[in-house]
């Protein structure tokens, strides 16, 4: 006799784009801090991608409210144990970081670049948060399946990483910058994220057992197995591993990861609300 919250497509899009924004930003911060001078191009793509995405996220969240004009009420209150409350704050704070990092990514000055790297190390924490908290928000509700999923946050975070990196890679490919060492590095990083995501997904399903049925069987089953596990994880992972020097295959892999990331959010959000 439970009631579903009626979170639908705008929330699916928010979870998906928020994951990419967080993933792209922390990837950029890592490339900026630990990569070579050339990897700064990767970092800039990541910063500049996360800024508009987080802006769209904010709009999606506000529009989905019952009374959008009261969205500021969430900013008048803070509950450290409540994913919805911390999440609202984190979207705002993360947005400020993406703005500052994006602006500073155009600098030619080495001292400003050094400042940007330090700022991004802090902003990175909010990026990780944004990618993962949406899962924790669902898993701390009274809903069946959502509330049973101890690894929902871990799964969303890994998916945020893989989709964020895939989005950066795809933009590099489309803008003709898919070459050299940096392209190889983002592919390796994305490969690792996909492996983590597959591993977490396997444990997630194993732990849930029959409680995972809302996504593994029924009308969402084919989408889950074919769209997410097959086309969205295993196929892109194989393309990434064996695509070799064919950059187009790397780009196809990245595009499939993005599709898989969307399907993950879609099947999870819609599972118990259909």
């Amino acid at each position, binding site marked *: *006799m*439970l*009631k*579903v*919250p*009626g*979170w639908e497509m705008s929330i699916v899009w928010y979870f998906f784009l928020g994951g990419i924004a967080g993933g792209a930003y*922390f*990837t950029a911060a*890592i*490339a900026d801090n*630990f*990569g070579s001078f050339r990897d700064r191009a*990767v970092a800039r793509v990541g910063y500049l991608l996360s800024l508009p995405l987080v802006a769209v996220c904010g709009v999606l969240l506000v529009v989905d*409210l*019952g*009374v*959008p004009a*009261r*969205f500021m*009420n*969430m900013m*008048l*209150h803070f*509950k450290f*144990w*409540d*994913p*919805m*409350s911390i999440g*609202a704050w984190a979207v705002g704070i993360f947005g400020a970081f993406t703005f500052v990092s994006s602006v500073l990514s155009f600098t030619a000055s080495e001292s400003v670049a050094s400042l940007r790297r330090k700022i991004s190390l802090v902003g*990175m924490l909010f990026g*990780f948060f944004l990618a*993962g*908290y949406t*899962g*924790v*928000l669902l*898993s*701390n*509700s*009274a*809903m069946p399946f959502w509330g049973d999923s*101890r*690894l929902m*946050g*871990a*799964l*969303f*975070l*890994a998916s945020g*990483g893989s989709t964020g*990196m895939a989005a950066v890679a795809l933009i590099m490919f489309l803008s003709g910058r898919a070459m050299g060492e940096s392209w190889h*590095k*983002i592919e*390796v*990083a994305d490969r*690792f*994220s996909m492996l*983590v995501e597959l591993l977490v997904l396997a444990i997630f399903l194993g732990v849930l057992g029959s409680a995972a049925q809302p996504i593994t069987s029924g009308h969402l089953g084919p989408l889950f197995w074919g769209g997410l596990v097959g086309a969205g994880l295993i196929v892109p992972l194989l393309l990434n591993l064996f695509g070799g020097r064919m950059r187009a295959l790397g780009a196809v892999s990245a595009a499939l990861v993005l599709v898989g990331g969307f399907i993950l959010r879609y099947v999870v959000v819609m599972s118990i609300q259909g």
Partner: protein
Amino acid sequence: MARTLAMFTDTSLCIGCRACQVACKQWNELGLETPEWTGTYQNHAHFTEKTFRLVRFIEAPGAKPNGDLAWLLMSDVCKHCAQAGCLDACPTGAIYRTEHGTVNINQDVCNGCRYCVASCPFGVVSFNEQTGTAKKCTFCNDRIHNGLGPACAKACPTDSIQFGFRDDLVAKANKRVEALKGMGFKDAQLYGADSGGFLGGLNAFFLLLARPATYNLPEHPKLPQRNVVVDSLLSIGSAILVGVGAMLAFRERGKGGE
């Protein structure tokens, strides 16, 4: 905090007249709804944004002391949990606990995020599309602050719904369970009366004549937020794996990268 107020719904006394449901509608000006055909006298199937008190009509085979089919009646309502999932979930502070221990939604603050709807273990909180806010039983907040009991309790002709101080009502309820057991109702039990039990006890608690599941109530409702630390730590673990992977990928070769 003042002495905790409570409502005790003794389902063994309910005659299914639905005066409580009507009184609630009238006092709280909840307005009309399209009726739902449920196959019984029950209407609606569940709480809505305009139905805060709901008499449930349940046919339970074998639940009578002599083994016959029992026609169970239960006037259901928001439980005003001592540990309330909706209250913990609310990011705006619109949901608050009154000095009497009841849980209420401030309609001027709620912005309609609906996390409380997903966080109620009983499916009580409902979203109202017209106002864009979450709605549920207010425990007649206006009435109890003016020396009156809730409208439903006031209207109940059989004292199936009783209003008073929680400790008094729990003592009364325990006596009533014993009396019913003496009459042969072996499954008579209290639901939510124990403040050391689930959710810290319910401030609207019930006397049931059968197992909670018979009434579509969860046997062991749990606070939805109980796993927030574990889930967060697991997410941090995932973040470390993904982050270290990216770090290794981007690390400068001169420093011993792959």
